[in-house]
């Protein structure tokens, strides 16, 4: 099962050659996917050689094979983490029972929903980032963007494999739908809101890869615990690639922050005059993307989430190592709620608050990155600190969505919120300015003025390396 077929049209370790039905479905889908990639993938760079990492095997090291590739020739394949020896369901009402190799009929609907929702995010981000190559601050960054794009494309393959293999005709219909929805489209939008938001400059791109892809990390990690083993193994392998996306986001923001601090000091507090990005604008971008990403975790109190956990479909982050009680039938969690116009702490059955449990983990992870950025700021001596807004601020989903909160999480009036929105959140003037300062930089080793260089290159290559051959 874990033998890798490198020579077939579709590299895989799922014995595609031995499954004619699946092979036929995927080969039918391949041209549709290529059509989508050519229409909606990175605009203007399809014929260039890019220094990309391609997964050719699932063993350690084997998934990171670097070479020049034209993006349409990238080997989109299907890889599942090899079957390990743990074969029992790790949480929920079926705790300790053998994992499922096939879909349990009673959970078919829920699993389909989970897989389709996850799958939909993969092509969406490629669409959102489509034009960023044309304003990339360096060849290094441009290459990272394309690396992320092809890997999101591969993640779509991984999810579509599950749809084809386990969901029959319904799965095939869903797979086609995945290619027909479009990020931000009025008629056929992507399923989740954050994936319909415009991402038209690199500050948003780095925020997106830092905050929104980080949601992906936690979603994939909790699905990697799933009692439905093919889903668990698929997600586990996707996580190895996702780590690079988060690295791009986190270090990208760190480099902007570093450069902004320098320019702020050099210009006596007016970095815009030197084509740099003001730190308060960065704070607004953080506020904007962090909160949109919080929405992706779903409702604070959710019977769906409770069901997914109880049914053994979706666990918690690092379920096995971080938690002792894997059933959690009776626990409670305190969730602050607005009742009668005031915020009060309310007890919610733990399982129903499980989205909030995952959100807690996510916020902690975001705080860790924030501390790094603040160390960068501290070293610069600019005397500014960045912060994460409250989880209640600027929400569009869940129990806080209907109430006005300030970034500290206090209930305020609608008027106060409206009066301060452009101060708290990335606004159209910010976006106009950001687009105006972003011009493509293509000389190997050179960086745009608004961002500091990275500390090292890709795969041991120097910064001056020609990551993209234009």
């Amino acid at each position, binding site marked *: 099962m874990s033998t890798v077929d490198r020579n077939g049209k579709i590299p895989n370790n799922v014995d595609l050659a031995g499954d004619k039905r699946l092979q036929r479905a995927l080969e039918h889908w391949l041209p549709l996917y290529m059509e989508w990639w050519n229409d909606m993938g990175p605009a203007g760079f399809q014929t260039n050689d890019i220094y990309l990492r391609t997964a050719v095997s699932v063993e350690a090291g084997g998934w990171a094979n670097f070479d020049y590739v034209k993006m349409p020739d990238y080997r989109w394949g299907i890889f599942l983490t090899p079957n390990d020896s743990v074969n029992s369901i790790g949480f929920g009402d079926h705790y300790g029972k053998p994992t499922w190799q096939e879909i349990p009929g009673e959970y078919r*609907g829920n699993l389909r929903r989970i897989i389709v929702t996850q799958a939909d995010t993969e092509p969406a981000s490629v669409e959102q980032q489509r034009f960023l190559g044309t304003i990339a601050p360096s060849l290094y960054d441009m290459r990272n963007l394309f690396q992320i794009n092809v890997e999101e494309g591969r993640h779509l393959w991984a999810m579509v494999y599950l749809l084809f293999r386990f969901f029959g005709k319904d799965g095939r219909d869903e797979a086609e739908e995945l290619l027909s*929805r479009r990020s931000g489209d*009025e008629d056929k939008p992507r*399923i989740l809101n954050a994936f319909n938001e415009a991402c038209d400059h690199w500050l948003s791109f780095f925020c997106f890869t830092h905050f929104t892809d980080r949601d992906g990390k936690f979603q994939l990690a909790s699905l990697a615990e799933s009692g439905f083993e093919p889903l668990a193994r698929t997600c586990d392998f996707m996580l190895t690639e996702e780590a690079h996306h988060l690295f791009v986001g986190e270090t990208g923001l760190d480099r902007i922050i570093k450069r902004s601090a320098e320019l702020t000091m050099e210009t006596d507090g007016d970095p815009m005059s030197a084509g740099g990005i003001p730190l308060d604008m960065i704070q607004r971008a953080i506020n904007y993307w962090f909160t949109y990403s919080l929405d992706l975790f779903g409702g604070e109190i959710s019977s769906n989430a*409770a069901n997914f956990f*109880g049914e053994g479909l979706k666990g918690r982050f690092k379920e096995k190592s971080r938690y002792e009680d894997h059933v959690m*039938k009776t626990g409670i969690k305190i969730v602050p709620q607005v009742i009668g116009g005031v915020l009060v702490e309310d007890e919610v059955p733990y399982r*129903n608050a499980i989205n909030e449990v995952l959100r807690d983990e996510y916020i902690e992870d975001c705080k860790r990155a924030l501390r790094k950025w603040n160390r960068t700021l501290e070293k610069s001596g600019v005397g500014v600190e960045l912060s994460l807004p409250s989880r209640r601020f600027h929400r569009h989903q869940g129990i806080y969505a209907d109430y006005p909160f300030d970034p500290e999480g206090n209930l305020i009036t609608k008027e106060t919120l409206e009066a301060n929105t452009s101060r708290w959140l990335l606004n159209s003037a910010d976006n106009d300015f950001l687009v105006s300062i972003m011009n493509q930089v293509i000389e190997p080793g050179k960086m745009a003025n608004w961002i500091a260089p990275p500390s090292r290159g890709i795969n041991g290559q120097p910064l001056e390396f020609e990551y993209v051959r234009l």
Partner: protein
Amino acid sequence: MDTISFQVDPTRYRHWNVSKDGSVMQIHMNVDPEFPLKSGYDLKLNSYDLGVDIELADIVRRLRFEHPEITSLVVSSGHEQVFCSGANIHMLGTSSHSWKVNFCKFTNETRCELEDWAAQADVRSICAVTGPCAGGGYELALACDEIWLIDDGNSAVSLPETPLLGVLPGTGGLTRLVDKRMVRRDRADVFCTLAEGFKGKRALEWGLVDVVAPRSKFDEQLQQHLAQIESDRPGRNDRQGITLGPIEVTEADGVRKTSTLSVDYKPEQRTAEFTFVIPSAAGAPTTLEEIHAAGDSFWPLRFARELEDALLDLRVNRNGIGLALLRTQGSLDDIQAWDQILLGHRGDWFVDQIVHLFSHVIQRLERTSCSFFALVEQGSCFGGSMLEIALACDRIYMLDEDGVEVQRSPMNEGLLPMTTDITRTDCRLLGEQELAKSTIGNHSRLDATSAEKMGLVTEALDEFDYEDMVPVAIQERVSLSPDSLTGMEANLRFAGPENMESKVFGRLSAWQNWIFIRPNATGPQGALTLYGRPERPEFAWDRV
């Protein structure tokens, strides 16, 4: 428990926004989560409880009388994320059995009245579904003439009760699916077991919706359609609606009184004595101008509304009452004159709608879980429309004495049909068709013996027998099992053919009420009990 009032008016709506644009009435469901009818649950995601439906019923009723000028009704959602997520599950999970049953019955009656009104008034009703539309939400859609679904990859119609809650899909939704929309039954089977339901293309292919349109074209297409509907229905602009004022209710010493009837509650005997007082027809409005000018004070309308309000009060607020005794006071001349005013002006929208309402109210009586006996005594006036109410009762006792008479009129010959669309005479005389035919056109006054021969009364009794037998019959009735009586009456009241509406109520009573009390739904491990809780249901697998 607090008394539930079924009266509301537009100034007090919390959950619906009503707006009119030319001949198009728009109603937006925008449920305020913080105002459930009872405490203990929030009305999240445009879910509804009885309070939300009482407002909808009021809207429909006011459409009937206050807005004769409209040509179409658009039902839509004011909620950003969903169209309607159906009946509130936490409300169902925490309610008593009788509350659930009355809730389901009332919501169905509201949907039936919406259908009835739209058909009678020739108004096209359109449900514009934007966002997920689940369970009772889809039932509301099913009650409209057309269902429009936005094709945005997210909006879907569904009946998820079986997979999610372990109860019957819809409270009548299944019957509308296969009997009204005529969706193939095997497809309906698939649809009803799929929690997430169907979106755009598939929903259209399977006949679950009528029109699918993308977001960018939805409003425009709908507007074009509405304009067409309007141009197909000319000549309504000059109609003036009738404002429905509140019903004044007083209650003292156990007697609930409104302007046209009183109900004397005798809880220790478990009876309610209804007395309808028919006013003199002298000075009654006779011309259309006078009738319209009288508006909601016009006696037939006032009586129909007040009788309905009394029946709803009986159902929800007087649970221990098992038998209603119906009496009339007045003269047959007067009731004949009142009926004649209506009959003489048929074709006028207002008069027609009064007759439809009257019909609807009598049907409501027949769907009430309570025994009804009509008592025809001295001073009573069971003629025409009043006789029709008596014919809706389980039994009619008539005193055989000089001066006690009943009288048929055209009102008994098809103008006030049963739920099943036949006349109450035909329903009673199913096996005696010659006799049934002979009643047509016989509008003479009938004494007890003649009425009994004609099959109009259950028993004609002389003074002594009446005094002996009627009190005993009453005592006997209230001593029997109320559950058995409810089932028995529902089986006997609707003899003859079925139609969609009768099946809605019949199936609902039989199945939903059974499922509601089964452990798989409402036992400690039942799906309805555990919905929204961390535990998962455990079913007893025996098929009963």
